[in-house]
């Protein structure tokens, strides 16, 4: 057990936590926007895995990680466009379509992976890290928090961008109205369908980016089912955080620490099933739901398609 709490170990643990948290953070922020606008985006897992696959393919063939992220985000957005068309525009059941998209894309990416990479299992070179000057030199915290890929800083910055959008822009007002009282938004002259579509597409882009990060930076490789419920965790984070982006960040970090602990304990050779630690974040969330469940108010029109003039 010596060295369990050594500086190096702690730094690795925190570094891993941040790495694990970033996809969750992106997914959670994305889902939050959909939910705010009244769309329960169960398909986010599908958007994530498609982003992960395309992100990897893009980075692998172009050799540019950035191109990979771009393609991944676009991939997530493409899935979101299908979701927006079917659920927002045509008003089909959001849960049915969400599940179908998730299952279908998990299957499709596994299939494509099999034909492309199953013999070679190619890996990407380790991603470049961008240390933040000065901060990166702090012991323990420096290497843990301030020596990451640029996307990590982007994801954290996004939290504040989102806060800004929700609090200070017309778009933020529109999104909230679309979720809480779509008819009021409609008569104010704003297209509810378009507002919700914007939200779903943003969700797709962020989920796709999160997936691409997971594959390209987190793992360096794409394997089938790599997202392993990360999208669903994003839904959980968004629901618990309700409208508050900062809470998504904290939640993602909590999950990240737990996920990172599992790897760390394996490295440290501790003989305890990693499953125990994997359960911790979920346990924490369930306890929070039991304690604060009554207050977990969701947008009034969540999950309901909007049809003008219908009661």
């Amino acid at each position, binding site marked *: 057990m010596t060295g369990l709490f050594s500086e190096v170990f702690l730094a690795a643990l925190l570094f891993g936590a941040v790495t694990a948290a970033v996809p969750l953070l992106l997914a959670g922020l994305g889902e939050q926007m959909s939910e705010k606008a009244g769309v*329960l985006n*169960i398909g986010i897992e599908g958007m994530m895995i498609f982003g992960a696959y395309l992100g990897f393919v893009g980075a692998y063939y172009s050799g540019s990680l950035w191109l990979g992220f771009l393609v991944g985000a676009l991939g997530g957005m493409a899935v979101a466009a299908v979701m927006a068309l*079917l659920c927002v525009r*045509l*008003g*089909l*059941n959001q*849960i*049915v*379509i969400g*599940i*179908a*998209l*998730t*299952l*279908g*894309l*998990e*299957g*499709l990416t*596994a*299939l*494509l992976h*099999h*034909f492309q990479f199953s013999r070679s299992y190619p890996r990407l070179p380790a991603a470049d890290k961008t240390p933040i000057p000065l901060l990166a030199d702090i012991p323990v915290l420096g290497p843990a928090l301030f020596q990451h890929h640029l996307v990590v800083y982007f994801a954290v910055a996004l939290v504040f961008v989102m806060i800004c959008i929700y609090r200070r822009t017309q778009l933020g007002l529109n999104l909230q109205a679309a979720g809480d009282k779509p008819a009021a938004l409609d008569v104010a002259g704003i297209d509810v369908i378009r507002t919700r579509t914007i939200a779903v597409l943003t969700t797709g882009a962020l989920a796709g980016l999160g997936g691409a990060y997971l594959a390209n930076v987190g793992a360096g490789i794409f394997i*089938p089912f790599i997202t392993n*419920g990360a999208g*669903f965790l994003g*839904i*959980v984070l968004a*629901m618990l955080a309700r409208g508050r982006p900062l809470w998504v960040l904290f939640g993602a970090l909590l999950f990240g620490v737990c996920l990172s602990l599992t790897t760390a304990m394996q490295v440290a050779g501790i003989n305890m*099933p990693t*499953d*125990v630690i*994997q*359960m911790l974040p*979920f*346990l924490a*969330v*369930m306890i929070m*739901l*039991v304690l604060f*469940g*009554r207050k*977990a108010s*969701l947008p009034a029109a969540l999950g309901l*398609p909007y*049809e003008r*003039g*219908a*009661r």
Partner: protein
Amino acid sequence: MSVETTPASATALEPSLPEGGRGDLVRRLVMTLGPILAALVIAGCILLAVGVNPLTYYGFVIERGLLSPLGVQQTLTRMAPLLFLAAGLIVAFRAGMWNLGGDGQFLLGAVSAAAAGPFLVQFLPVWLALVCAFLLATAVAMLWSLLPALLRAYQGVNEIITTLMMTFLGTSLANVLVKLAFLDPSTTVPQTRTLPVEDRLPRLFDTTISSGLVLGLVAIVAVHLMMTRTAFGLKLQVVGANPRAAVHSGLGVPTLTIAVFAISAGLAGLAGAVDILGVQGNVRADWNPAYAMAVIPMVFLARMNGFAAIGFVFLLSVLSIGGESAARRLGVPHHFTLVLVSIVLIMLAVAEYIDHHFIKTRRV
């Protein structure tokens, strides 16, 4: 608007009504087969894109999953847990509760059965040991659904989220139980003790088909009859179709909610038990076939009708057994089944939308 019109319902895939005329049946048949054909074509294009002849693939799947004697027996055996899961989902979905936690409930039921079965056969008659294992699996799965049920019934917490959480928790817990509590000391593979083949559920006649199939069929038919023929089932349907009408009619919605979760999860637990006691014999660490997720689309496709669900579960079984075979022989991973199923589901939703709006314009 104070104009009396039919309430606009744009939601596709509503539960099928108990009544339905003959013309309705034909329409429904077209509405079901059309999307399936469309999906086969689209999925075929995907196969073409990866360089596989779709006709060869489909032919092979049908040959191995349906036509070959061994294949069809495997298919029918595979149906058992899927039927239980479908039965559980029908109860929940018809009552308007989105129990997406089937996989966690399934695994915990499986682990309970795997722990109890080999232990109990040592000093109980086999049949009694199996019954006890089934009961234990049911009880554990029911217990696992209690928290989401209570939260939904009394706090109004969305059950999608809680059941998903509980399924993640349940999957991990099942692994913990396998690795820590019920580990078989006699092998190096992390798994529970194995139920001897002769103590498992009997096979049907001279085949390799597990009698779990019969149990599964009984379960889903019973659930169908319960939902369509009994006062209890009708109450659940009222809760699902219009919760406010349920309150207005004096139904005890919280109690019914808890009952729905208990039945749904109990059936998922039974699914786990029937798979272990009939086929697997033990639970290996990290085993998660994710049957529940795959069955959800089938239940939607069947529009929550029990008899139709039997057909779709059979189809899923053919596709998965055939698909697993094809994975070995044609090199197409069995994940293709997932792709096919989800395309069918999306096509169906779209077809229903078109149908709905076609009817709407025709009425005007």
